[in-house]
Every structure is written in C-alpha cells, then in structure tokens.
C-alpha cells in the first residue's frame, strides 16, 4: 500500500515485497523476447497460474493492466479511443481500456511496450465477457487461444458435480496442457505442479488467516480496500511461487502484530483509530478514484470487514477450499468452479448474509458496477434478501471499474453518509 506523498507512512516489508514482485513480473514481461520467455494473457477469476508457471511462461493479466491504468488516471482516454474505434458505450470498460491501451502502444507501467502474447489462456470463469474479450484480442494478436470452459454453478448449493469437474479436468489434459507444451517447448511435469500446489495452499492459508482477522473488534485490516492489496499476489501472477509464500508470511506477521497491539486498519492517511461502522461490501471497487472512494469510508470511521471482491480470484475463506497437491488437476477444476462470480445468486446472497453475522457487521453495502453484469445483475434482489436474512440495513451505490465518467463523488458520498446515519438510527432504535 504505497503513499509516496505522505512521509508519515512507513511501508511495511510486505508492501515493499509486493511492489518488487509486481515490478519484477512487468520487467520479465516486457523483456520476454530478450529473456527467451513465452508469455500468456489470462484472467484473474479461474486463472491457472500454477500451470502457466509449470511451463515457465510469464503471466499477463489484462484486468490488472486496466485497473492499473485507471489508478494512474489513464484509462479514460483509452476507453474513449476504443469507443471511437467502434466499441459501444454500453459494454465492459475493462475490455475497452485494454483495447485502448493497445492503441496507445501497449505500454506497461515500467514504460516499456508489452510483448504480443504467445498465447491467450481463455479461462472462461464466471464472466461471459471474457469470451468476447479474448476473441477481440485474438483478432489483434493472431496467436493461439485456448478456451477453458468452466461451467457455471447454476444449480445446487455450491455443489460441484462430477460432470463439471471431469469436463474441466479433461479440457486441462486434452486442450490446455498440450497447447502450453507446444508453445513453451517445455514438457508437462506433474510433480512440478504438485510442488506449486503445496506453495499455493501455504499462501492460501496465510491469506485466509489475514482476511479472518477482521472478525476481531477492532479489525486490524480493511477487508475491501486493504484486501485489494492483500489479494494482489495470489490473484495475479504469483500463486504457487516461493515469492507468494514469503509475501503472505510477512503479511501475516505484520497483521498479527497489529492485532496483538489492538490496532485498527491502515489507510492512506494512517491508522483508522476509531471503528464506527463495520460493513460487508459486495462488488468490485472503483479504480479511477480509488483513494477518494476509500477516504469517504475511513473519514467517517467506516471499515469494510469483508467483501465479495476479496474472493473474485478464488474463494478460500468460505468453504475451506485449498489447492491440493495430491489431486492437482482436480483441484484446479474445483478452484475455477468455486470462484465467486461462478456461484449462483442464491449462494452469493447467503454468503453475504453469513459474512455479516460472522464478521459482526452493521450491514451490506453494494457497490454496483456499471460495467460488470456478472456481479451487478441481481444485486438489488440480493440487497433485499440480505437485509431480510440479517436484519441489518443495506445500501446501494453505483460506480464503474475503470471509466471515470461513471464516478460521481457527490452522489456516492451522499449515499454513504445517509447509510451511516441509517445504521446509527437502527442502533439507537435497538
């Protein structure tokens, strides 16, 4: 969590570690040709990072590039460029930011151009737009594209059927692995994959421990804005690596220290001293005005103790899933199938209601994202149901992922303030 303008904030070791990891991956990506490395683009939900690493390939995540560009205030121009190229105003702004980034030279944060990917790993998990997104990229890059269709858990209560699991495993064996072998010229080594899985599970244990510290009062972490940073390594290019294990060990130590000292969560303006409202948040954050958005919470003493977004790249803290070295391909399948947006709305709703209870929250706040129907469609019903199930008030705000045109600070702030007042009134009435 960097804040270069605020000298009071001393960066924790985990922050420095993460920064170095991300910078290192961008260096590897942008120097891939010189280093003789193959690159693949893929998505955060349902990413098969351990497999990608098994073939010594470098992982590029267009979603992360888009949100990074938004945080650097560059996505707006990229989106308008894509719209000028014929992309509708109505569709996902992640896609348009990515296409606009290409048009502007496809520069990585280090200022060097991204290489054209050697492969597009279309992990089709929990979002229909992914399919169109990579068809659009394939049109530009003309590179091999592998579809990994992860069936939606439309029925049942979070139960992955044998048919679903077998389907994903078969695709991994028959389509994904052979393509990766061909592109990388590296033979698949299942023992190497197992070793990665051991490291994945270790990091997952530590991440879950960190996220669940928010059950304490006061919470030592923010489970939404803060968690965005905590999930960074495991949801992106590092799950399965020694770096990720080290990062989560460091993070756990730091959070334990905060917990032991009874400290509140860290914000860009220092520690949150007084925890007045504890919220569960559904939906991704807004990236274009991330700091401004966060400030609207901590200025009012509001802390987010849990969020669905901290599960978007894998649900580890709900039903005990861990990558399993004994059944590596099956556990990749279970991981993909269990991603948050791949679960049906009734289950997601129950999850939010459970989080309110488990984390002693004051209610559910939904940040509904204009670009993201996977999250957004059905959220108004979810709000009502969670209010009924938990007996706690909910609130609804609307922003976008990376399109600055859809972030209206005054409206969002107004609604948040009203929500906090509503919580106060409920408390007084109780």
């Amino acid at each position: 969590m960097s804040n270069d303008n605020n000298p009071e904030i001393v960066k924790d070791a985990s922050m420095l570690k993460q920064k170095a990891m991300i910078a290192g991956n961008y260096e590897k990506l942008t120097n891939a040709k010189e280093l003789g490395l193959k690159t693949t683009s893929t998505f955060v939900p349902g990413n098969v990072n351990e497999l990608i690493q098994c073939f010594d390939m470098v992982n590029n995540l267009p979603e992360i590039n888009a949100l990074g560009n938004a945080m650097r205030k560059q996505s707006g121009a990229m989106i308008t460029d894509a719209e000028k190229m014929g992309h509708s105003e109505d569709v996902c702004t992640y896609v348009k930011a990515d296409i606009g980034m290409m048009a502007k030279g496809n520069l990585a944060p280090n200022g060097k151009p991204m290489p054209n990917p050697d492969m597009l790993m279309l992990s089709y998990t929990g979002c229909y737009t992914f399919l169109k997104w990579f068809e659009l990229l394939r049109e530009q890059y003309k590179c091999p594209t592998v579809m990994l269709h992860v069936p939606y858990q439309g029925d049942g209560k979070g139960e992955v059927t044998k048919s679903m699991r077998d389907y994903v495993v078969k695709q991994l064996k028959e389509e994904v692995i052979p393509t990766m072998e061909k592109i990388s010229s590296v033979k698949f080594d299942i023992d190497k994959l197992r070793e990665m899985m051991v490291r994945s599970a270790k990091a997952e244990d530590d991440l879950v421990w960190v996220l669940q510290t928010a059950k304490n009062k006061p919470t030592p972490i923010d489970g939404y804005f803060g968690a965005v940073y905590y999930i960074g390594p495991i949801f992106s290019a590092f799950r399965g690596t020694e770096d990720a294990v080290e990062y989560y060990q460091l993070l756990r130590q730091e959070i334990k220290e905060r917990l032991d000292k009874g400290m509140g969560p860290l914000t860009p303006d220092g520690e949150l001293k007084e925890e007045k409202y504890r919220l569960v948040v559904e939906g991704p954050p807004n990236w274009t005005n991330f700091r401004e958005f966060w400030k609207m919470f901590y200025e009012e003493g509001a802390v987010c103790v849990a969020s669905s977004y901290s599960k978007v790249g894998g649900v580890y803290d709900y039903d005990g899933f861990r990558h399993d070295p004994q059944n590596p391909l099956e556990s990749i399948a279970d991981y993909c199938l269990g991603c948050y947006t791949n679960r049906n709305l009734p289950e997601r709703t129950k999850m939010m209601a459970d989080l309110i209870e488990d984390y002693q929250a004051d209610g559910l706040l939904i940040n509904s994202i204009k670009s993201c129907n996977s999250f957004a469609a059905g959220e108004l019903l979810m709000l009502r149901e969670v209010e009924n199930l938990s007996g706690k008030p909910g609130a609804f705000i609307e922003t976008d992922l990376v399109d600055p045109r859809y972030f209206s600070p005054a409206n969002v702030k107004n609604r948040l303030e009203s929500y906090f007042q509503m919580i106060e009134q409920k408390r007084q009435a109780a």
Partner: protein
Amino acid sequence: MEELLSHNRKLIFMSVKEIIDRCEELFEDLNFTYAREWKAAEEGRKVVGYMPVYVPNEIIHAAGMLPLGILGGGDAMEVIHGDAYYQSYICRIPRSTVELGIMKNLDFVDGMLFPSLCDVIRNLSGVWKMLFPEVYARYFDTPQNFRSDIGGEFYRNDLQELREGLERLGSRKITDEDLKNSIKVYNEYRNKVREVYQYRAYQPWKVPASEVYLLMRAGEIMTPEDHIQTMTDYLAAVEKEERRMKDNCRVVLNGSFCEQPPLGLVKSIELAGCYVVDDDYMMVNRMITEDVEAEGDPLENLSEAFLKNSLSFPSKYEPSEEEKGKYLAEMVRERGAEGVIFSAPSFCDPALLDQPMLATVLEEQNIPYISFQYAENSGQMQPIREQAGTFADSIKLWSAA
C-alpha cells in the same frame, strides 16, 4: 391430440391476414391464454418456459410438456416492479420478465430454463429461484468445447440432468422412445421453419419480415405440431396472394437474438425500403441446422447436433480465428443480401461486443452495414426508419452493382 388436430383444422383455408392476425393475437397476449388453455385441457399437463437463445425443446416435448418461449414483455407492458430489480444500465428483458412473473402472467408456468447466453440471463436464473422458489428453475449450460469426448460428454450429462429434472417435475419417466419421437417432430418443425426462411429469401415481397416475425413468435407459444400446421397454411396462403415486388434492397438483420425489438421496428425497416432476407430472431427454432439423428442414443444425438450442426451466435465460442464472423458474410452471400443491419438491444453485451468483429469481416468483403440500438419498449421509430431508408438508398443508388 384430437383437440390439436381440430385446432389445426380451423387454421386450414385461412387467408394470410387471418393467419397473421391470429399470430399477432398470440404475440400480444401477455396472459399466454393459448398455453393456459393447453395446460387446462388435460390434467397433469405442465408448461416449461425458456429464455433465449437455445434450449433443446425436444426434451420438454418428450416429457409431454409445452415449451413456452419467454421473450420479455414487449412494448405494451408497463414495467413497474421489474425496474426495482435491475439497474438502469442493464438491458430491459430481465426486468420485463420479472414483471411478468410478479404480475402473475406466468403463474401457470411450472418450470423455467435460463440458457447460457450472458451474465444477465445467467443471474436471472438465480433471481427466479429466489423470487419463485416453487417453480422448477434451471440454468441450462451448453458447451464451449466442441469435441465429442470433452464438451459432448459434459453436454450429454447436462441433458440427462435436464431430463431427470423434468421427470421429477412431471412425475413420469421420459423414455428413449419419447425422445426419439420428439426428435422427429422437431426435425420436421425445423425443416418447416427453414422452408419459410428460404421462401422469404427467394421472394421477400411475398413474405414480409413483420409477417415472418409474427409467424415465428407464434411458434414460441404453440405446440410444434400446431405451429408446423400454421407455417404450412401460411406458405399455402401466401402462394395464392398477389403481392407486388418493390425496388427494395435486401438486408440481413443481426443482433436481435435475445431481447426483441418492438414490432414497429421490424415494420419500419421494411417500410424504409429494406427486404429482410435473414435474421437472428428466435434462433431456438433453427439453431440445429441439420436433422438430428433419430436412431440410437437420443441425448447423444442431441448433443452431437449442437456440437457439429448448430448456428453461430455471439455467446458461442468460435475456436478458429479465421472463421470468426464468416458465417455472417456467408449468410449475406447465400441469401443474396446487399447489406447488414446490426440491430441490437441497448446494454446487450454479447451482441455489442461481437459487433466490431463482425463489422471487420464485412468490411473485408465490402459488405455495407449500419447499426443502431433499441429496447423492447423503444417508441420512436422515425430515426430508425430514416437511418434504414438512407442505408437502402445508398445501396440502391451507389452500390457497385
């Protein structure tokens, strides 16, 4: 069956106007009287609704149930409750469908299927489970891997789960024989649909787009047997009518596979000087492009038919970059069309994200196109009429031909 035959006999010898009036009546009837009467005619009958784009109606039919296409509320329905469930940036079809549910227009529907089309329809399956827990509601997946031993196996299992779900709903077994019989019915049905489409492509002045639209909409409500007869009667009646050929241009419509345009939009395009010679309305009735094998394992046959012989649509992955969008250019060529009109609902992710790729293919082949967006309750047709009219004029006056 006797009742159906008697109903069919009533349709025989009807004029085009009478047939289309009947279809329009069905189209406008948001109380779904036809389906209600069908259900009431025999004890134990069930009705299963389905959303666009594709479900294998053969299985519903084999269960002795009526497949009922749910295509939103159209422009005649005032949406009040539905708007409380969906944000302004989400398309209209889920809100009007929820409105239909809440207002009890669908209170006779025993099951609802939500095909894998987009995130909105996908999540609507969950909304339905939460709002109407007494209804059998199922998200219906189709494979994105088209190998028989991978996607085919998964899909066959999916079809079996649907079969078992409908068996529980109907409290009766669906035998292989039931399925084989239904496959034969739907083979005949699809052949008749294709005949209408071919007839229109051949003589579009005799078969206006609005009539074909209403005719096919009726098929979303009627039994397939009834609809086969209606289409047969329509073609016979059309053959007898004199209709003047106009100097219109020939266009293919693309992008309207889910939320439907108001009927006025369909008419406006034609009035603007365009003969519609193909479209992607209600693709469920021709998704499978060849006869499904009726012998052998029926579920495997249905699975293979989807894998090997199904139409392209935006939510279906195209594994080959070279083939992406080619189907549209081929459709233009096969139908003798002179241009494409992209007509997609606002906020329709699959259609709008697909459109730039399709446009690239058309540009490469020098096929002109225009695009506009609509909602099922769009009221102002004049801008669309002007746009389509200008497009038609530009083709007629300045095309190379």
